[in-house]
């Protein structure tokens, strides 16, 4: 049963077309990775799913329900949360307050402050300090925790490895299976192909607004991925 089904999604910024008919499906409980170079349309895809870009309602379905073009807050209420690129923590709020903003939609589920602190113990130590005073890796933990606080059925992660040291990236990716184990489906956007392929059940490669490759990670050879990623 597909949790998220996107059919021939087109997206525009004014006259500029960024997506040319993208199809994508996420099965309940799966982790899907979308890889692609800068400007391939990865973030545009997420922005469309979150209602930040216009889309016909039928084109994006969540648990069978058409959600294309709904207001962002209504989509969050349906059970989709997003970790935005660059973390976007609220600078005047403490770590714990940032997490509590995530719980604003009041959705019931397993994720509470205690559970987030258990997942990322370092956040617990820093709960009262300003969120943006932490290291990049810790901020990314807070951004993931904040998104989980809405108890989403689907979590979208936009380049969580961006600008972080490899050791911090590994630590973040080690947390993903635990999130997945709580029944949260994941859509991970990455430029870092290795990390993405390691966690995903299904990989999509985007290039210039089109899906150039889709398949299970173990079925894809390096050559095919490279061709789909860079084009030639």
């Amino acid at each position, binding site marked *: 049963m597909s949790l998220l089904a996107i059919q021939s999604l087109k997206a525009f910024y004014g006259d500029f077309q960024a997506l040319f008919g993208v199809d994508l499906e996420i099965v309940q409980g799966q982790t899907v990775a979308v890889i692609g170079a800068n400007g391939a349309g990865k973030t545009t895809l997420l922005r469309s799913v*979150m209602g*930040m870009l216009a889309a016909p309602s039928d084109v994006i379905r969540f648990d069978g329900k058409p959600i294309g073009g709904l207001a962002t*807050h209504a989509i969050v209420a349906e059970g989709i*949360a997003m970790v*935005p690129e660059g973390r976007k923590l*609220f600078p005047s709020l403490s770590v714990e307050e940032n997490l*509590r903003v995530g719980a604003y939609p009041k959705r019931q589920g397993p994720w509470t402050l205690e559970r987030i602190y258990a997942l990322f113990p370092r956040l617990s130590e820093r709960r009262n300090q300003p969120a943006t005073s932490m290291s990049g890796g810790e901020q990314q933990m807070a951004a993931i925790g904040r998104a989980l606080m809405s108890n989403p059925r689907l979590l979208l992660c936009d380049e969580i490895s961006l600008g972080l040291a490899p050791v911090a990236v590994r630590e973040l990716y080690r947390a993903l299976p635990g999130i997945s184990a709580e029944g949260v489906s994941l859509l991970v956007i990455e430029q870092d192909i290795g990390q993405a392929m390691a966690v995903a059940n299904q990989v999509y490669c985007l290039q210039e607004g089109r899906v150039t490759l889709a398949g299970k990670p173990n079925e894809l050879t390096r050559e095919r991925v490279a061709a789909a990623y860079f084009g030639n």
Partner: protein
Amino acid sequence: MEWVDVVLQGALLGGLYALFASGLSLAFGIMRMVNLAHGDFIVLSAYLALVLTQSLGIPPLAALPAVAVIMAVVGYVLQRGLLNRVLGDDIMPPLLVTFGLSVVIQNLLQEIFSADTQSLPGGTLVTASLPIGGGLAVGWLSLLTLVAALAVIAVLQLILARTRLGLAFRATSDDLVTSRLMGIDTRQIYGLAMGIALAIVAIAGVLMAIRTTFDPTGGPARLIFAFESVIIGGMGSPWGTLLGGVILGVAQSIGFSIQVGLGQLFGHLAFLAILMVRPQGLFPRTRGV
């Protein structure tokens, strides 16, 4: 002792200015929107209270809760129906729209109530005072106004620091787009913020109208006092706004005691002096970005 009295009366006047300023500061803090009709809403509240006291035969303070509720609804509807549509990256549209609102409100009031000055009957509240020794006395109304300002600011702080709504206010103020990603209906949040701002305006307007006369064109002057209080205190700092109001009140009171015409000038001079020395205000809390 005369100087002590001047400063004391000025500080009490500052309570009124802090009330003028709090609504303006709240709207700016959360929405980054400058409401140029703010002073006219203060005057509109005074007229609302006038209508209620005259038609129902109740004292102005008894009419205040109703005025506050009406103004809160006006604020919410205005924000959802009009101002949300013009808010964006460009700061000009909301300035132009609220400037237009200011003109519309002034002319409507003039059309309905004429240009005559009006006042609300304050009864003994206006004339009675509390002797505090040394030949000094503070008027009950001034004291009530200062207490109201303290209470409004304390309640605002409590809402911002302790409630779910306050958290949403602060998040929305920090980052509008990310707030939506957190499931916050930011249009609703803006509506509520303007509703609260105009409820505070109602308190300010009614207390002002008991204290002094008013007419349809008095809004812009109140807007200036509100602005000066906010900027002296520092953007985004409620207690700073109170101090800004007090500094403005004291400066005006000193000028007034030297020569009647100097009151407002001294207020503006104090404002300009602080702007020169500390352009960010005394207690700025807005973020650097």
